[in-house]
């Protein structure tokens, strides 16, 4: 048959992107941070990540009654992201309950992938922070031991740089950029996270507006209100960007496609809001770090932001109030 003209209905142009390909890209983007975590915190960090990913995938497969463990890959991403925001050596049951909560309370009760209101990995983190606060905050953070794979990292523990100014001063900006400081296993290395972010940006999965708004707001807020304790206002601003979970939050959590605004202006507002709440909690709140709750709160107001930032169609008329 030699048809010159094929008549079909739209769509005519299809993307080769699928949920699975996007999730695989996110996993690739997380690889540098995961590698850094293993280099800094040894086998326990690796174990934590494996338990979390396996639990998340198993719970998702059980819930959906699927044989395919990897499936669309979203459970693996949620599991890995959840592990990234845990201390390097939590007890196994905490990882299992948290990863299961991520999938069940964070995602499946809302109807599964694409329907969840809140970032599933951060829901899991919120659940374990609220439940076992003593294991998730305070001077419980192991000192990083670079290239010591089998070291018992739990031997020496301390507070994170955000907990007290004295702690903060013992880490140079350079060592914080590379990631040699105590913290959650995937959040310490800004360098590795930026590499992953660059990959996601290159692939077109993230919009610069959310991380830009988030990190920019944190920097400006730290510069203006952080005090000059870190050698000057400019350095203090940088300190707030590099310390804690801002980088992983801004690059991987706040850019989740499902739970963030779809409009360009909305994304900028979302990023700025995340930065603002993070800094309010850090500087004047009772907790040392506020990235988790900042992003969860902004997830909650995402529909409102979307509603207020609907772009006008080209040639359209502004709706009268």
């Amino acid at each position, binding site marked *: 048959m030699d048809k010159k003209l094929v008549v079909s209905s739209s769509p005519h142009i299809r993307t080769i992107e699928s949920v699975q390909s996007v999730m695989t890209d996110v996993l690739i983007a997380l690889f540098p941070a995961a590698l850094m975590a293993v280099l800094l915190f040894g086998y326990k960090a690796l174990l934590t990540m494996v338990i979390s990913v396996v639990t998340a995938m198993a719970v998702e497969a059980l819930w959906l009654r699927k044989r395919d463990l990897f499936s669309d890959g979203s459970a693996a991403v949620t599991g890995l992201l959840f592990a990234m925001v845990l201390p390097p050596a939590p007890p196994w049951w905490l990882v299992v*309950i948290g990863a299961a909560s991520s999938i069940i*309370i964070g995602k499946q*009760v809302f109807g599964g992938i694409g329907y969840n209101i809140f970032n599933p990995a951060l829901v899991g983190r919120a*659940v374990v922070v*609220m*439940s*076992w606060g003593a*294991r998730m905050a305070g001077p419980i953070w192991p000192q990083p031991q670079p290239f010591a794979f089998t070291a018992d990292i739990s031997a020496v523990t301390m507070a994170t740089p955000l907990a007290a100014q004295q702690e903060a001063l013992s880490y140079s900006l350079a060592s914080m950029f590379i990631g040699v400081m105590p913290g959650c296993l995937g959040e310490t290395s800004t360098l590795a996270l930026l590499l992953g972010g660059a990959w996601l940006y290159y692939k077109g999965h993230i919009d610069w507006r959310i991380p830009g708004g988030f990190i920019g707001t944190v920097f400006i807020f730290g510069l203006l209100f952080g005090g000059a304790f870190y050698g000057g206002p400019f350095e203090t601003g940088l300190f707030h960007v590099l310390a804690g979970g801002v980088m992983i939050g801004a690059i991987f959590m706040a850019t989740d496609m499902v739970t963030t605004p779809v409009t360009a202006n909305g994304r900028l507002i979302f990023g700025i809001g995340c930065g603002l709440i993070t800094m309010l909690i850090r500087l004047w709140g009772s907790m040392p770090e506020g990235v988790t709750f900042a992003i969860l709160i902004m997830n909650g107001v995402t529909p409102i932001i979307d509603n207020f930032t609907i772009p006008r169609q080209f040639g359209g008329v502004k709706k009268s109030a």
Partner: protein
Amino acid sequence: MKHKPSYWQEFTKGILKENPVLVALLGMCPVLGVTAFVVNGVGMGLAAAAVLIASNLVVSLLRNLIPPQVRIPCFIVVIATFVTIIEMVLEAFLPVLYEALGVFVPLIVVNCVILGRAEAFASKNKPLRAVLDGVGSGIGFTLALLLLSLVREIIGQGTILGPDPETVIHLFGADFEPMILFAQPAGAFIALGLLLAVVNSVYKRFNIK
């Protein structure tokens, strides 16, 4: 005229079919507020049930005397009377429970389960039916609180029959680290949501409507 339901039906509908908490989602304030411990949850349920039965009876007896324009204030006066009595009884005989329930005891006055039954049922039916309805709804309310507080105390505290140190039983040994989230207000909402999901699927399975 429609066929009148039997007395047995009047009694049982409040327990499962029209359970005030699990089906109608009424009275959420005490349901979420006092269910961190089983003792408090059941105490609250029984106190509200006692008020419900008594106020249903009196409202039903007075139903032809109360002018419809001012019926809500009249119901409130009746309910508040019984709440005051219950409050004094609790304070006198169960001071520990009274302390634990705190502000939620006087708040029974505005419990929508009680006001709802007075408005929707007792003010339109004869006393015997009103009392049966009150007993059924009261049992349903207490059962729902028992279920929710069981979930919350076992997961959130790892105990049962707490917080009184004389009766408390630690279910999982001393090393157990409970999931404190479920003892907190945020966890009350999550636990209630999960409980409702389970109850709904059970109702579907056994075709309870």
